[in-house]
């Protein structure tokens, strides 16, 4: 992290406090509060804050565990289906039930459609508006001039001759690609609804399997839309590559925008029905059989792909959030996991929520978001990891682990190779995503577009398997179960924008503790008990300023790109004060302190 507060004596330093609240074009309430050094074009400090508190884990205590997916879906309006799915994986473990293969495949088909939808709408109707012609004209006019005369290397494939043509296609509500993506974001949700019933709060995703009426028709309706999407992706990926490469080439140092150490978390997603049995004791094996490999990276090194080990590393810290510490007043509910491993009092199974609303104070408590961290026993530290907005961490870990190979997609140890089959308007196409050197805004955005292809190929593979089941008459997609009196369980999944876990403790057949940890607390967390800033804060604090506007007309575009690269989803927000800013201090010489 970079915190520079004392200017050198020979400099006049113009420091301004600015906040953006709310950050728009994301889901939820996020505020970003910064201190910017305009003399040196960099961000000194950043605070990320969320304005909303609802208290799900409080009002879920005591309810029937079978209601958990219906309730937790409502945590988020864009990852609601991810929550419902995660809750069902969790309940499957608690009840000891495994759905029939078609049930597992239906989950995969629904969730891959969700990723296809989510990455499409977030890329080109939200995040890439920061790269559109209108925006670049307002923030970096000279860069736009350059874009007008720069040919797109992939122009023959995607149809946009210059980089400026790409930018124009992304203008909101007028750009051709923006409008096409709005449409794509609808038919991909139709695909979701074929297996999930409704988006974003599904009606057919249940513990024990899927209750959708799955027939040949369901599969056909999915198939035609999927192939249309693959056709779209063949243009999308090279178009985004051209756009992002242009920024890296024309603005040297742009790879530091949103930069963080490569500290990543990803729980993996899409279970293979041949391997998964939902038992905690075998979770290491079926976790590694996922179509996206789970993993944790610390300082650029993949340290584990074992979901059991990952589970035991999780710690929930408070620090700057509006909660009292539960460890002062409660005894741990779970001291050993089902394998007999010790469980920490700060682990989600033992977390209790004690809210305490209070004034916002950046020197003390300023957010409703808590701070999850990964405990690294090698160094005895709680490491602040991010999800890279989802795709970045998923592909990073999957590529490095080299375990995935299902024909259309192969992880090589340093890259992911993908083959997109022939579609209506384009021949077969191969693309390859390489593990980038840095974890930064551009690479998070780039990973997301490659993940559109990855998700579509998981969908295609699972559809072929589902068709085999349906054609063989194996249409059962749900198995019965009973709720035990006591259970300790966990569901690990990936929301589109990153890690999602649900931890549950059942006592007397009712929920005693239910702790959902979506990607947002990981990414948007405020400073923790150790004073370690959260990933948005850290990434923004590392961000150099490339915007051509001075302090008077500053829009903060580089900061916006850094924050949006994480695909924020807070049914929470980032705050910058008024656009003109508030001059905090203009220092001429340091006063006294040397």
């Amino acid at each position: 992290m970079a915190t520079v507060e004392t200017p050198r004596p020979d400099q006049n330093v113009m420091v301004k406090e600015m906040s953006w609240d709310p950050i728009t074009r994301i889901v939820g309430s996020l505020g970003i509060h910064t201190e910017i050094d305009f003399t040196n074009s960099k961000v000194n400090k950043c605070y990320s804050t969320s304005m909303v508190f609802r208290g799900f884990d409080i009002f879920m205590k005591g309810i029937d565990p079978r209601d958990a997916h219906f309730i937790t879906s409502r945590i988020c309006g864009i990852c609601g289906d991810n929550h419902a799915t995660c809750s069902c994986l969790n309940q499957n473990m608690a009840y000891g039930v495994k759905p029939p293969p078609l049930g597992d495949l239906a989950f995969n088909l629904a969730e891959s459609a969700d990723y296809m939808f989510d990455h499409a709408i977030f890329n080109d109707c939200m995040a890439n508006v920061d790269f559109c012609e209108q925006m670049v004209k307002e923030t970096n006019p000279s860069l736009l001039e350059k874009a007008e005369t720069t040919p797109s290397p992939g122009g023959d494939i995607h149809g946009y001759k210059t980089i400026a043509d790409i930018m124009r296609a992304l203008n909101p509500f007028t750009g051709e690609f923006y409008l096409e993506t709005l449409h794509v974001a609808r038919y991909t949700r139709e695909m979701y609804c074929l297996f999930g019933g409704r988006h974003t709060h599904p009606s057919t995703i249940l513990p024990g399997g899927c209750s959708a009426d799955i027939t040949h028709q369901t599969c056909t309706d999915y198939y035609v839309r999927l192939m249309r999407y693959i056709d779209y992706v063949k243009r999308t990926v090279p178009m985004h590559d051209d756009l992002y490469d242009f920024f890296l080439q024309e603005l040297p140092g742009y790879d530091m925008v949103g930069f963080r150490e490569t500290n990543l978390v990803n729980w993996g997603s899409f279970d293979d029905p041949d391997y998964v049995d939902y038992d905690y004791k075998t979770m290491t094996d079926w976790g590694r059989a996922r179509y996206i490999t789970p993993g944790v990276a610390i300082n650029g090194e993949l340290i584990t792909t074992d979901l059991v080990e990952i589970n035991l590393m999780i710690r929930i810290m408070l620090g700057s959030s509006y909660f009292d510490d539960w460890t002062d007043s409660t005894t741990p509910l779970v001291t050993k996991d089902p394998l007999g491993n010790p469980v920490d009092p700060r682990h989600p199974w033992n977390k209790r929520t004690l809210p305490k609303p209070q004034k916002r104070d950046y020197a003390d408590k300023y957010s409703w978001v808590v701070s999850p961290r990964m405990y690294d026993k090698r160094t005895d530290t709680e490491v602040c990891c991010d999800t890279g907005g989802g795709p970045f961490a998923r592909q990073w870990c999957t590529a490095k682990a080299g375990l995935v190979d299902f024909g259309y997609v192969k992880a090589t140890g340093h890259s992911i190779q993908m083959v997109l089959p022939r579609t209506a308007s384009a021949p077969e196409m191969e693309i390859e995503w390489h593990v980038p050197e840095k974890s930064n805004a551009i690479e998070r955005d780039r990973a997301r577009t490659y993940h559109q292809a990855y998700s579509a190929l998981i969908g295609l593979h699972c559809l072929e398997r589902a068709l085999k089941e349906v054609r063989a008459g194996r249409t059962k997609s749900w198995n019965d179960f009973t709720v035990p009196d006591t259970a300790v369980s966990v569901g690990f999944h990936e929301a589109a924008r990153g890690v999602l876990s649900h931890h549950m403790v059942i006592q007397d057949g009712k929920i005693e503790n239910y702790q959902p940890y979506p990607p947002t607390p990981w990414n948007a967390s405020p400073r923790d008990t150790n004073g370690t800033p959260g990933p948005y804060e850290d990434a923004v604090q590392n961000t150099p300023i490339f915007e051509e506007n001075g302090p008077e007309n500053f829009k903060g575009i580089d900061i916006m790109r850094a924050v949006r690269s994480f695909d924020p989803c807070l049914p929470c927000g980032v705050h910058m004060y008024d656009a003109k800013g508030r001059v905090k201090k203009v220092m001429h010489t340091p006063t006294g302190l040397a």
Partner: protein
Amino acid sequence: MATQTEFVPGQHDTEAVTAHVLWMTIGLSCEGDSVAMTSATNPSLEDIITQAIPGMPKVVIHNQVIAYEVGDEFIQAWFDAEEGKLDPFVLVIEGSVPNENISGEGYFTGFGVKPDGQPITLNEWIDRLAPKAAAVVAVGTCATYGGIPAMKNNPTGAMGVPDYLGWDWKSSAGLPVVCIPGCPAQPDNMTETLLYLALHLAGLAPVPELDEALRPKWLFGRTVHESCNRAAFYEHGDFATEYGSDHRCLVKLGCKGPVVKCNVPVRGWVNGLGGCPNVGGICMACTMPGFPDKYMPFMDESRNAKASTTLAKFTYGPLLRWGRNRSIKNNYDKEPEWRHNRSELTTGYQKNW
């Protein structure tokens, strides 16, 4: 040149009006209604923004999920509305309203900050803007009736907009709070109502007819069961015994459709596809004022349903099923006997050749 034809009365004047939609997503919610709104097709978001329907005013939608502007540039519209600079405007609330009387010096949800740096709460925004709004629309069950954040044992004292403003409250244009429940609200139900209100404010459509729970009657007049493609199985006393491949009526598996007002079985979810019992999912009553507590646990059959399903199952249901199946098998599944390839005409026509 002659002036352009008017397809609706006063079209040139009404289309010159600019109506603003201030869509607040900062109630206690998941923003699922805003996200769902982007999937609407009848009308779509673009249809509204580009004035696709003759006579409709120009509509500017201020919504944080789709806005180009950020931070204070985005919030400015709310201050402008407060100062009377945006007229007319429709205030859309998404999410339930917390009871900020109990949050002490803190807050449960806010939007923008006051000069002292503390957040402006949703409640304060409603107090400032509701008296000036041409209409207040509550979208999603959180905003209409409280929904999930207002469950028993919730720490925030959450409630719906009519609970906060009063069920008898009327806007400056004389409209009560318009409620579009659903968790999330069905996408087209939201955009269609907004279009309707835009046309109403332009004088082109009458006051929307609302029921006792402030829902538009044309959308919420029927129960899920009354529109469900599985309802006949109920009539036959023929009920699904497992989720998924069993396509019969889901009431014994927890479907609450018979006592829930909602049009999803006929409207589907996105562009006519998807839904709840019509595609295999139990209705969990997400449009209802009593949601969720009065319908939990969702996967169990309710006591009333037990009595009624038992009646259907052991009395008239099997008789109806037997009689109908028999007449299909013996009569309606068979073609009339005059369709054949023999060398004679037996249709009843007297041929003259």
